[in-house]
């Protein structure tokens, strides 16, 4: 085993045990690992942001945009690149937060981002969560009409319609849930809980797999490296 690999395994094992020590209680080892983790992740993110965000999307477009104005560069190289300064300028407004006097400037880029996000999300939500789901709920009934669906398929299609309709009623906010509406919304929440239960089990299985992976590292890689000591 290479020395560098050996050191890497021991550092990883030490930090893993430091994090797991939180299961007992908060302690200096956990605090050390936590602060290291947070600090390193921030440093890593800043580096990534500079190389994958700032340089390609702000620094380089900025110099390209103002290049035609440098002495010796032919002017016909293009004024059209100047539009790139607009998003860069909007991004710079975020620095208004540095001074309490100009904090209000942040509202403009924030409004643009929120509006853009909502504008992009709404058509996708309409398409995927509403139109596509409605089609998926209704379509099996064409197969029932054609007589190509098995008895279990028919039951599944009916169950799907009942589930979707009752869940929709649960999320209806502007009427009081009383009488039949209350009953139907209770059926809806029952469907939701069944769905959550299966998702819970599914995810727990995934998490157990992650735990097994870490324990496997500790037993095979870390304890296995003890041999290199002697």
């Amino acid at each position: 085993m290479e020395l560098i690999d050996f050191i890497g395994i021991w550092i990883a094992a030490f930090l893993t045990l430091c994090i797991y020590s939180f299961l007992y209680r908060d302690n200096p080892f956990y605090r050390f690992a936590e602060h290291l983790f947070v600090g390193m992740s921030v440093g890593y993110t800043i580096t990534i942001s500079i190389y994958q965000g700032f340089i390609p999307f702000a620094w380089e477009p900025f110099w390209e945009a103002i290049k035609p104005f440098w002495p010796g560069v032919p002017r016909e190289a293009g004024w059209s690149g100047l539009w790139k300064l607009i998003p860069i300028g909007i991004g710079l407004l975020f620095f208004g937060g540095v001074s309490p006097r100009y904090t209000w400037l942040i509202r403009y880029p924030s409004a643009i981002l929120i509006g853009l996000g909502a504008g992009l999300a709404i058509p996708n939500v309409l398409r995927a969560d509403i139109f596509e789901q409605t089609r998926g709920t209704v379509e099996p009934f064409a197969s029932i009409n054609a007589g190509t669906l098995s008895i279990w398929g028919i039951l599944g299609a009916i169950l799907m319609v009942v589930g979707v309709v009752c869940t929709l009623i649960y999320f209806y906010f502007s009427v009081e849930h009383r009488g039949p509406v209350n009953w139907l919304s209770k059926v809806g929440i029952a469907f939701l809980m069944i769905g959550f239960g299966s998702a819970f089990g599914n995810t727990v299985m995934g998490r157990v797999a992650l735990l097994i992976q870490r324990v496997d590292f500790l037993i095979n890689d870390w304890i296995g490296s003890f041999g290199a000591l002697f």
Partner: protein
Amino acid sequence: MIHNKTILWVLTCLVLFLCGTFAFSQEPAAPSNVTAKDTPNDDGSSITITWDAAPEDSGVVGYKILRNSDAGEFEEVSKQLDANETKYEDKTIIKGKTHAYIVRAITDADASVDSQQTDAVQAKGQWFHTGKTPLFIAMLLFSAAIVWNIYNARSGKEIFVRRIPGLEAVDEAIGRATEMGRSILYSTGLGGVSGVATVASMTILAQVARRTANYETPLRVPSNDPIVMNVVREMVKNAYLEEGRPDAYNEENIFFLTEDQFAYAAGVDGIMVREKPAAVFLQGSFAAESLILAETGNSIGAIQIAGTDSEHQLPFFIAACDYTLIGEELYAASAYLSKEPMLLGSLRGQDWGKVILFAAIILGVFLELSGITWITEFLQRVN
């Protein structure tokens, strides 16, 4: 006589042999009807090439697409396509240049034959995606319903909102933190500022901040995104100003932790176990860290009110938190807490949308059972 017959047989065999040899040695016909057109309804980043399928017995086993730019040399731009393909979308074009195409048919004998060169074509972006017109109309109708209800709400019309238990506990949680002299911890999750759940979370936070401003309860907001942090600072500051308590606002309580998912979880866990907040709000978009946060909050005995639209994390919040806002309840929360006409009107408008959806499903079921399929065909076309 026999001699003549023999000669006839020999001649027939010779002719057949020559015909067969000629037939098998012929190259396949070049791909016909090759066209190159700007792909409709895109941003001008692709050109679509079409051609007629070769006959099954032509020996063609595939096609390759060749392209030139501004009348330059032709070069291959695709890997070998299957013999049954008759369409290729070239997404590697150079914007602003004209491109002409040749479709090369490849035979099983490794021979190839090129089509005629197409006319040069330049891709252009379209401002309006004609295929999404029904989606656009649906959005307009939906927006009209919301605007109409906002107008009604602003005119003073009472809009009822059903009880949402998780939100009724907000005052209880803030009151408890105030009585115990402890802080409130509010996480907006991992979403960026343009995420719908994050926006909903920030509007709930503004309402929570109004209450903490009055009670002078410290409100701690560790943020996962620097932009979200800045927006949250502005919203909380405004809430304190509107309540007449700008002196109680402490900017340092809203701080950036890290963008990394699990480092964020480790950091928030550390804050929880050290500061022991009396109430923990986990509202927004969460991923695999949800249970780590919720379990730690549970272990310190805090009242926890969670809310997310991430379906896979809801089970963990339901299991580990005192109250959970499920999916759309998160979006309704700001209207419920603030009772602002604009938000209430918007909520009613969304409910109208659900009624239409409800009707479409019921109608669709009956129509499909009757053999009428236009609803599903329409929805298929929209997608």
